[in-house]
């Protein structure tokens, strides 16, 4: 955008320095077409400058109309040549929803800069110009900036740079309550081995904060983000699928972040030729070249141990099929087991939780259940005849038992009203189970 507007302004300077009016006007018509070819949509800046200049200095109404007609016609006439639709021909190279939230903010900013340039001269005019630019910039920021989206991007960026402590400490998602914010917090805790311990300590949009669904409608950002938890669990099949999908829908089908992810996944899979192919894309980049060259040399990767050893067919977003397959391939994959159990809990599917807990958690990690698992077990065991013995067998602590008894008593006292319980039990699974509403 800066290069575009600068080129347009410099072209205007050349235009205004031509003394012969006839020659200048012919040049104006030629320049406007050349500028469209060279800088695309920003050529409008040149047209507006010339029109203002001609109207102010020469009252050239007819010429201004002619120039505006040429400006409007150039994209339409060249749309076929550049294989663009009529709308895209006017805005190319600006990409909708990526470089600009809204097209009009681009136009408003350009218009404001132009007016400022045009008004420049006396001090009063300079003040007026500066005020216009400031007002339009602030209005543009207010209209196109979303703090909610900023908080999501902040979490995603910190996670990308491996700052798990920062992500875990972020409070913004408690205010904005987004799936992606919750997702990155869960991921940060999972990477620290604390997913079940911290599950109830922050906002949970049911199981939507554990894995991000992807399909052609979710946009490339969500597809990009969805790879992170999949890689963490070891599901390279779905992770690669998501990364490819994200890459496909990134503007110009290029994303250094996804290329890095794809290199990582290929190296973990042992798909070295493919990793080289992706690495060659990054080789000449300033910020990723060195990383790519070094990454393809490291052929050993701890994550390979988590890979699925048996091939099953499953639909994208079928988290149960994916996790069960991963755990059956590697029963010590605690991240996958925690994700599976937390998925059951956040889905309030206690029956399935008990089955998964017995099948996957007990044989390897059963001696030290996380507090949330103990809380859930209390609810599962409550229905069994030999509940007391089973509580002992499952290593549920006395503290959790007593808290559970206390919760149930207060629940009955309050006739199901959650408010009196929130302070003491707001961060227990029991409170989530009884009071959280799940949006399927």
């Amino acid at each position, binding site marked *: 955008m800066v290069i575009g507007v600068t080129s347009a302004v410099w072209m205007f300077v050349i235009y205004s320095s031509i003394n012969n009016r006839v020659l200048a006007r012919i040049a104006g018509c030629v320049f406007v077409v050349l500028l469209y070819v060279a800088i695309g949509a920003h050529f409008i800046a040149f047209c507006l400058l010339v029109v203002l200049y001609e109207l102010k200095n020469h009252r050239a109404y007819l010429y201004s109309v002619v120039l505006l007609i040429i400006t409007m016609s150039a994209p339409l006439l060249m749309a*076929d040549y550049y*294989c*663009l*639709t009529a709308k*895209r021909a006017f805005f190319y190279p600006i990409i909708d929803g990526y470089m600009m939230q809204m097209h009009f903010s681009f136009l408003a900013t350009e218009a404001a800069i132009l007016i400022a340039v045009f008004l420049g001269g006396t001090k009063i005019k300079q003040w007026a110009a500066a005020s216009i630019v400031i007002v339009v910039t602030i209005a543009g920021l207010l209209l196109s900036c979303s703090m909610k989206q900023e908080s999501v991007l902040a979490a995603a960026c910190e996670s990308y740079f491996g700052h798990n402590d920062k992500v875990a400490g972020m409070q913004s998602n408690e205010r904005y309550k987004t799936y992606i914010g919750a997702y990155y917090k869960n991921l940060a805790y999972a990477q620290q081995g604390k997913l079940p311990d911290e599950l109830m300590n922050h906002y949970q949009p049911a199981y939507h904060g554990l894995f991000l669904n992807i399909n*052609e409608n979710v946009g490339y950002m969500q597809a990009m983000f969805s790879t992170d938890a999949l890689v963490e669990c070891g*599901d*390279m*099949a*779905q992770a*690669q*699928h998501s990364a*490819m*999908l994200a*890459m*496909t*829908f990134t503007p110009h*089908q*290029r994303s250094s972040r996804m290329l890095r992810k794809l290199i990582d996944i290929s190296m*973990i*899979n*042992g*798909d070295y*030729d*493919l990793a*080289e*192919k992706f690495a*060659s*894309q990054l080789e000449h980049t300033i910020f990723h070249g060195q990383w790519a060259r070094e990454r393809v040399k490291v052929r050993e990767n701890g994550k390979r141990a988590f*890979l*699925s050893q*048996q*091939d*099953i*067919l*499953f*639909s*994208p977003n079928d988290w149960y*099929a*994916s996790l069960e*397959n991963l755990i059956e391939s590697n029963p010590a994959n605690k991240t996958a087991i925690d994700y599976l159990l937390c998925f059951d809990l956040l889905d309030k599917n206690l029956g399935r939780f008990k089955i998964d807990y017995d099948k996957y958690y007990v044989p390897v990690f059963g001696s030290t259940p996380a507090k949330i698992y103990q809380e859930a077990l209390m609810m599962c065991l409550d229905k069994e005849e030999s509940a007391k013995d089973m509580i002992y067998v499952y290593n549920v602590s006395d503290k959790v038992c007593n808290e559970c008894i206390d919760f149930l008593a207060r629940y009955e006292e309050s006739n199901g009203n959650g408010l009196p319980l929130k302070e003491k039990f707001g961060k227990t699974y029991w409170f989530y189970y009884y009071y959280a509403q799940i949006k399927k």
Partner: protein
Amino acid sequence: MIKKILIIILLFLALSCSGPVPDCNKQLSSCPVLFPDYTDITIPCNIAPLNFYVKGSDRISVLVKGKSEYRFSSRSSLIEFPLKKWKKMLENEKGNILDIFVIAKSNGECLDYLPFKWTVAMDSIDHYLSYRLIEPAYEVWNHLQIYERNLENFDTHLLGDNDIAGHSCINCHTSNHGDIQTTFMHVRGANGGTIYSRNGVVRKLDMKTEKYGAAVYGEIEGSGRYGIFTTALIMPILHSYRTERLEVFDKKSDLILVDFDKRIVSSSPLISGEEFQETFPCFSSDYNKIYFCRASHLKQPDSTRKMHYNLYSIDFDKVKGRLGDKINLVFDAEEKNKSVSFPKCSPDGKYILFSVSEYGTFPIWHTDTDLWMMNLATGKIDTLNNTNGRYSDSYHSWSSNSRWIVFASKRDDRVYGRPYFAYVDDSGRVSKPFVLPLKDPESYLVSLKSYNIPELYNTPEAYNAVKLKKLYYKADKEIFKNITSEIK
């Protein structure tokens, strides 16, 4: 003064000219590592220059020895053959075996490699190749383009771009290799249809069936009047194993016969129905037969690995447009625990080339997919060991003279398909393949697109992307009468 300036300019020009690498004494006992690998191959006498890189070199000198000698040089690791000189060389050397001597300068060292060979076939390849560029992102797409490439030079021509066709899927640009070239291409989406091009007339057709929707894979017979297509409910699903990626299966599939003149879609119980799944039909070279793949219907995805498609044929009366009353087993792939897809007959009627995988009906994601060729006179199968690569080789097409095949091969990196050509000699031996030459072959490395469904033909397509855009948005669809449900 002017004289001095002229001398300086001439000296500068002389010094900056690219000259051959001086003779060197370091003889290597190996051929150079080229990208792409163009060593020891058979090439058409009309192919575009086979520009290549010699990895790690700073300067290259190439000497081609045939009936005559031809010298080329470059001041980088890429050798670009001048088009005029290249064409002249191939014309002079038709039918000859050329020895290619490469001398490269690398880090100040002069390397003299062992020569490799190019056999210049007497047979030319079709002038044009169409292919689709698609991100290999499993089951969805974003930006799709179908190009027509002139194989005698590097000119390309955009046939379709979904950016200006409602972002719909565009696929299967296929030619009939007939006297009057007829092609079709499917454009999906609300305003889409099958784009049918015959003798310069382009139509947009709606051939949807009530059962499964639009036509998919298919072929048009020589006169351009009849076409045979698959119509199917296609489902994508993921593999969990790390490098297997995607499985695509047909939940149901049938074949439909299309009369483009009378605008009728029909079928036969022999090639449709619930009991079997039929797909990938093609005409024999005399158009008196239709070959197709068929498997018993099984519940999928549970039984996807048990889906083994065999190759069958059914007679076809090209005058009356009628299908025969029995089907014949041509190749029992199930017996070999294999599955056949995408059969294509050579225009001379001698061979049928098809893809063979372990199971299923979507060969491009099966790394085990190979091309096999059957001699139609003897029934003998050639597994083309010299031609198949380590990963999927599929979606092939014959040249009009039956001497060249092109196919999409993922041999380089498992995921990105590239068009490879191979020569089929008089006795049916298929040569080592070579990749489509590009002006700068590095494009293969930096591109994140797969070359998909390569198709050879001789006459340039009658439309381009802009005309397709107009057809998509402005032309009315010709609705075909569907009588498939009336056939018992």
